[in-house]
């Protein structure tokens, strides 16, 4: 039972770390701001969620598990709010949505 939980927790942690790296790669590689917000959402949803689930399996029924759930709820509610405010502020400041507004990229 404990070994199975360890294996599952290992898989969740590694998958969460992979999603974090993928999201950060997207943050660097994507070419427009509004596309980069999607990459940031990958970090906030998949990366953080999977890592928290993996840690939750390691914590067991302790106070640490409760704190992990609180962290998860915090990210769950705050991160979309922050991303929405960010995109809204960028739009209000006149950051263009269209792709052809930028100079043609090398890639």
């Amino acid at each position, binding site marked *: 039972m404990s070994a199975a939980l360890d294996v599952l927790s290992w898989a969740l942690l*590694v998958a969460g*770390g992979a999603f974090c790296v993928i999201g950060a790669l997207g943050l660097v590689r994507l070419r427009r701001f509004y596309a980069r917000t999607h990459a940031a959402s990958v970090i906030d949803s998949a990366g953080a969620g999977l890592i928290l689930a993996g840690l939750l399996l390691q914590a067991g029924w302790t106070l640490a598990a409760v704190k992990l759930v609180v962290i998860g709820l*915090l990210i769950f509610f705050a991160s979309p709010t922050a991303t929405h*405010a960010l995109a809204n502020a960028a739009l209000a400041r006149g950051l263009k949505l269209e792709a052809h507004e930028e100079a043609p990229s090398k890639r």
Partner: protein
Amino acid sequence: MMFTVAALALLVALGLALARAIAGPTVFDRALAGNSIGTLAMMMLAVLGFLDGRPEFLDLAILYGLLNIVGTIAVLKFFRYGDLGDPGEPEAKR
């Protein structure tokens, strides 16, 4: 061991997000990268707590998350209106 792998992956992601925060052409790119760095730092704190065998680090992660929200929203409001005390758009007439 598994916490070490997760911590290393988080370090790589933090480095990439930091690169975007430094390179970002607009201030919104920097704010977005800063928000991601905040989330990644929360995860890093949680993983470090387990890596070290001291789950008390989770309190620090919660505090960091709360400060991260307030900081992001404050920076956004400042760069949208140019003033933290500005009430924003005028309310719609009824």
